[in-house]
């Protein structure tokens, strides 16, 4: 079509028999289109987000400054919910549990992902199949993961204790203690997300120039040395991304421990709250005890801790150059 337009003026005098009376209108429409369309395209996002995202966020802060129960808004109590929270052993316990499981899940997960990506980053047959195999765990329904691993970590009938029995370890009551329940829950998280992180690392690794490794080979650097001295520094943006996103996800841990809990004590994270996370505590306060004000204060604390950890992560990863 553009060629037609360019050819027409060759015939002089006779103006193009185009829709000349409509031209100004068409030009106006076209200007409206180029000026207005971008905003029209973005509008759905901002409208939905304002109503269901931004407003609730601010409102959480407002609710947290009130004594607010199922019967409705009570009085404004300032920071009383927060003062109470800081003196609440259950809150500190939930924070401790969350951070503990966060460490147990994130560190091995990212380390194994790195090694796995290193293995995948070689000339291999059936690459797509291997990559799909690695990604398989994240396409499992999350509650299904909870159910399978709950059974594997059952005290009496579980496979974990069966295997440990083979090497002479006495059966462990996985739900009874902090360390054992944390280990079981972190195993679920690690299992589910390691492959995904490995693929992100792999994607980043593929843009590292081969010559770097060849040079290192000549210098006699071993595989592990190359991983630490070449690969990790070269894929730093991907590492930052995975560290931050696993931290945010870990701070919101909810489904796995809830299903692991089974029965009536599920939301409390065991009889002694041994594996109750912050999200579970928020849910318990808001939707079981209907103390919305207190629950909102917990929500804000989760947010602040996430912000703090993200900042620390960022500084540490940035410094460790």
């Amino acid at each position: 079509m553009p060629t037609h337009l360019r050819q027409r003026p060759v015939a002089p005098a006779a103006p193009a028999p185009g829709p000349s009376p409509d031209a100004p209108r068409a030009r106006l429409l076209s200007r409206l289109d180029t000026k207005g369309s971008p905003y029209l395209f973005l509008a759905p996002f901002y409208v939905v987000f304002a109503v269901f995202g931004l407003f609730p966020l601010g409102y959480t802060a407002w609710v947290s400054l009130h004594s607010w129960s199922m019967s409705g808004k009570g009085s404004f109590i300032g920071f009383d919910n927060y003062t109470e929270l800081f003196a609440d052993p259950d809150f500190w316990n939930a924070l401790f549990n969350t951070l503990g499981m966060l460490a147990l899940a994130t560190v091995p997960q990212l380390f194994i992902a790195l090694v796995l990506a290193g293995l995948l980053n070689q000339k291999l047959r059936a690459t797509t199949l291997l990559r799909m195999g690695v990604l398989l765990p994240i396409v499992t329904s999350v509650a299904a993961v909870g159910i399978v691993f709950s059974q594997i970590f059952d005290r009496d009938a579980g496979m974990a204790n069966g295997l440990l029995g083979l090497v002479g370890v006495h059966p462990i009551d996985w739900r009874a203690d902090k360390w054992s329940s944390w280990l079981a829950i972190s195993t679920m998280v690690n299992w589910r997300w390691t492959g995904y992180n490995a693929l992100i690392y792999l994607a980043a690794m593929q843009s590292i120039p081969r010559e770097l490794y060849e040079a290192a080979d000549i210098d006699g650097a071993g595989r592990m040395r190359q991983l630490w001295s070449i690969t990790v520094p070269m894929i730093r943006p991907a590492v930052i991304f995975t560290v931050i996103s696993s931290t945010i996800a870990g701070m919101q841990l909810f489904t796995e421990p809830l299903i692991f809990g089974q029965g009536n004590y599920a939301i409390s994270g065991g009889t002694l709250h041994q594996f109750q996370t912050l999200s579970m505590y928020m849910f318990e306060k808001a939707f079981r005890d209907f103390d919305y004000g207190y629950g909102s204060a917990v929500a804000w604390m989760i947010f602040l801790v996430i912000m703090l950890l993200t900042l620390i992560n960022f500084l540490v990863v940035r410094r460790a150059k």
Partner: protein
Amino acid sequence: MRRTSPLVYLTLIAAIALSAFPLYWLFVVASRSNDIVGDWPPPLIPGSHLLDNVSRLFDAEDAHFLKGMLNSAIASLAVTVSVVFFSSLAGFAFAKLRFRGKNFLLMIILGTMMIPVQMGIIPLYMIMVNFGWENRLQAVIVPFLVSAFGVFLMRQYAERAVPDELIEAARVDGCHTFRIFWTVVMPALRPGAAVLGLFTFMGTWNEFLWPLAVLEADNPTVQFSLNQLSTSYYTDYTLMFSGALVATVPLLLVFLVSGKQIIGGIMEGAVKS
């Protein structure tokens, strides 16, 4: 290039076997009867009770499993279609169109990616009560029709996948902007859209905390009804495992159909920061 040693293959195969084992175990127990529970060594071969167990599952009182599956299917499809469409539209605008306030509007979106959903869940619940949407399916759909992560992802993708000349050419041809989006940009965004679609589908299918807060046990999503199963039937392992298996099948199907594209999308760096 160095030759790949067999040890690498062995390690990778072992890692994948470890990845697949819980899924396989899910299938084994779901196809057995309850008397195998606690057997040592555990039975590692599937049995013949799968259909029995699945029909028991759909009959199980209080679990409302069928309803849960239907609800999750509707919600996941609706949210996925909407997120992919609106994210592509906004991503295209950010990547390829010029307009006032673009940087500011983009900053807002990037900022919101940091905010966890839990943060707003209590007021969100209050809004739903006000709308009369408690225990209604739209409560798990409408708030999630757009995604900041999706906009970010599609913007990244559009920047690389759509040449400016293509858009200019379409404009010279007299296409209006939406038509350019629909006929020129959208086809080019397809691989990115596939990744976003799968992750959105999975995310919605797996959403747990919010349905638990806003829905009741008689109108659950599938994860909610699995939780019902695991609290009220937790001695009936084969029933729980059948439920877990059935709840995973749709995700596996989506993955098998689109897996190659998903891997391609991740490898092209669509998920990189």
